[in-house]
């Protein structure tokens, strides 16, 4: 029974496809996958906008939206209607074609990236051997969209936003990919379902064998999260939008449906990169404890995804924004060395997997953790402790 529930969507699709003549099936199967992905994640987008506004509201001592429907739950509907009915304004000096194409270039690659993500046991649209590579390859397309939007708008603020956006996203692409490479090194596969499989099982019957419970996995996950925040232009790395500085950056000349598409694209990107983080480090759809393994796998995946989203909302409500040069320093001088050291630690971890003496696990943990901690403290000491930086004492005159 639970087995059927776990495979519910897989069976459902197989049944629907089976009802059609054989010639259609080749085309129908991917269409159903695409429809399901778009439907589910667009719905999640609507829910997340509400959750974000409510969550930010509570963080900021206010109620958040509560006028539309009970507790404001219909707010996304109202927002959507408003977006669709707004006038679509294109500046006279804008490059109309590029201006039109930019939002599409934003959403399409991200939707493509969903194809390789495993949302549950057997629940993956394309089990692609180089799935991880595909994800990063199409994910890089959003950078182009940001630049297209900024350039084609013919607005000085949007040009500044595009400049910031392209610099930031390309810089953070490097630590993002390199932190994932550590997983590939240990799991020995680029296919996302097999990376999830490599995290199956439990140590001593209770501790999940997720990568996040290893020293390199923990460091990798944190680095991945930071880079993912920057990749999805979320606070404290929301410089391309920079509400208080360059107003909305590349989005300044967009309105109506095109703006909604950008908004959608940003949130879809956030979900996709969170889902990738879950797949790589948090065991994908696996249950955290063995006695809850009967809960359908997609529910575990959804719960982890919502947890990540909550983390991002929390970050957004609490962090000030960095400056462009600080952002670049952080990426190239701090994250990049740390991510490279993490790669070495992952290799050490993998190389010492055969150690069998008593306390081998603890020794490996301490060793890897010590290397990472030393690198971290050396880097932060060298980079972030300038003379005169830090809390100050003040004198008083009577």
């Amino acid at each position, binding site marked *: 029974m639970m087995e059927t529930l776990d495979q519910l969507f897989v069976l459902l699709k197989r049944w629907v496809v089976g009802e059609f003549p054989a010639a259609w099936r080749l085309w129908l199967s991917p269409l159903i996958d695409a429809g399901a992905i778009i439907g589910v994640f667009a719905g999640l987008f609507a829910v997340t906008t509400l959750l974000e506004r409510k969550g930010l509201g509570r963080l900021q001592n206010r109620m958040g939206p509560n006028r539309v429907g009970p507790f404001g739950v219909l707010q996304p509907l109202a927002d959507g209607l408003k977006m669709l009915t707004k006038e679509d304004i294109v500046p006279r000096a804008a490059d109309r074609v590029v201006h039109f194409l930019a939002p599409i270039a934003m959403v399409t690659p991200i939707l493509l990236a969903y194809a390789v993500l495993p949302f549950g046991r057997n629940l993956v649209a394309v089990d692609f051997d180089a799935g991880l590579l595909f994800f990063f390859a199409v994910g890089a397309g959003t950078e182009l969209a940001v630049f297209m939007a900024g350039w084609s708008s013919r607005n000085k603020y949007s040009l500044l936003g595009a400049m910031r956006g392209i610099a930031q996203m390309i810089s953070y692409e490097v630590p993002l990919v390199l932190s994932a490479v550590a997983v590939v090194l240990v799991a020995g596969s680029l296919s996302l379902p097999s990376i999830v499989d490599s995290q199956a099982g439990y140590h001593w019957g209770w501790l999940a064998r997720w990568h996040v419970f290893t020293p390199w996995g923990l460091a990798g996950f944190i680095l991945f999260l930071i880079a993912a925040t920057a990749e999805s232009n979320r*606070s404290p790395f929301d410089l391309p939008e*920079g509400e208080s*500085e360059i*107003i909305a950056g590349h989005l300044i000349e967009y309105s109506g449906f095109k703006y909604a598409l950008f908004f959608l694209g940003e949130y879809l990107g956030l979900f996709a990169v969170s889902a990738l983080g879950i797949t790589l480090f948090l065991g994908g759809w696996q249950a955290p404890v063995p006695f809850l393994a009967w809960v359908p796998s997609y529910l575990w995946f959804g719960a982890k995804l919502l947890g990540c989203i909550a983390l991002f909302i929390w970050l957004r409500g609490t962090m*000030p924004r960095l*400056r462009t040069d*600080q952002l670049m320093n952080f990426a190239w001088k701090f994250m990049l060395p740390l991510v490279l050291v993490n790669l070495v630690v992952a290799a050490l971890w993998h190389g010492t997997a055969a150690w069998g003496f008593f306390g081998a696990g603890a020794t490996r943990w301490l060793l890897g953790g010590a290397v990472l901690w030393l690198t971290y403290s050396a880097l932060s000491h060298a980079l972030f402790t300038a003379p005169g930086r830090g809390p*100050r004492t003040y004198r008083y005159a*009577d």
Partner: protein
Amino acid sequence: MRAQAGDLEMRGAFAAEPHGGGGRSAGSDAGWGAGAGHEWVRPAEPVGRLEGEWLEVAMGPHHPSTHGVFRMNVALEGERIRKLKPVFGYLHRNHEKIAEGTTYLGSMPYTDRLDYFCSLTNNWAYALAVETLAGLGVPERAEYLRVITGELTRLLNHACLVGFLLHDMGTMGTPLMYAFREREKILDLFEALTGARMMCNYLRFGGCRVDVPAGWLAGAQRVVDEFPRFLDEFENLLTTNEIVLARSQGVGVLSGALAVNAGITGPMLRASGVNYDLRKVDRYGIYDRFNFRVPLGEHGDVYDRYMVRILEMRESVKILAQALKDLPPGPILDPKSKLRGFRPRAGEAYGRIEAPKGELGFYLISDGSVRPYRYRVRPPSLINLTVLEELCLGHTVADAVIVLGSVDIVLGEVDR
């Protein structure tokens, strides 16, 4: 002042003036140095710097972080600010001329609108000027009420300013909403006392308009007692925040010498290490009776301006506690003061107080009639703004926004 077309308007596609190395004289800088008497005098750039094209951006008047309708014309090299020119006057309401056409008391409600965050201190400065002009005394109780409302205004202003500053740093308004929660409590007190939350119109020449209602003092005491807890919470979240430190330390440095030369006053001057607080210098009202200290900064950067305001709020809480304890009974209005037919003798007077933003002064000339012959405001916001270009040059757009935030302006007072 600048008649040439295309100062900072969009000229075709991103038309930025190309600046060839060394070929930049005041005359060739379109818009920046044009017109006699408005020449931009700036030390030459070091030779050998790579010159790119400069992007001229008009930040404002409808930019969310210019605290109203203020405009900064900036020339950017990448994101570095190479030139900055403040433009104001969008909110000019002819305040001073209108005041010359109405009675002395008629201007009192209008002073509320100068710095609309701090109507009570505006009232106080104006009342002080008129009292000096007419030689009116102020009863003891009214002096205490002025101190209490004035210091509550300072708490309100500084709390919100810090909130706005952090909002400019990109915190999505979280500290701002925390500050607004406290502001709300103080505004409730103002409403109970004066009938209005922001436009209080509370002071009269020679005293105050109404006495405190029943229970008001207890409510004020409660707000004052709780305020340090809010400050602790605020500081706990912000003062040692790594990003706040990185963004604000060493940014927008104002030297003490320049601050004095430019006539900067208020927390901004004290953040540069100059000990000048009119509450200590003039000891106007009854400030000599209170025990409080003046916090001084050392570096004069954005962080010092932030911290000086936080520490000033702590001192204000001390003053408030003393004033609420010592508040004597008695009349609140000088019996000699006349509300109607008020004609001070001919002469001139300047009244100034330490408003939350700096020295707020009113200069009045009376010709013996019911209307002032000349009425002039010395607005701290405007004069503190004059060094903005010095503070911003060489920093990025993001820094310019927080430097402007740390200056603490209200456009109602800048433009008058």
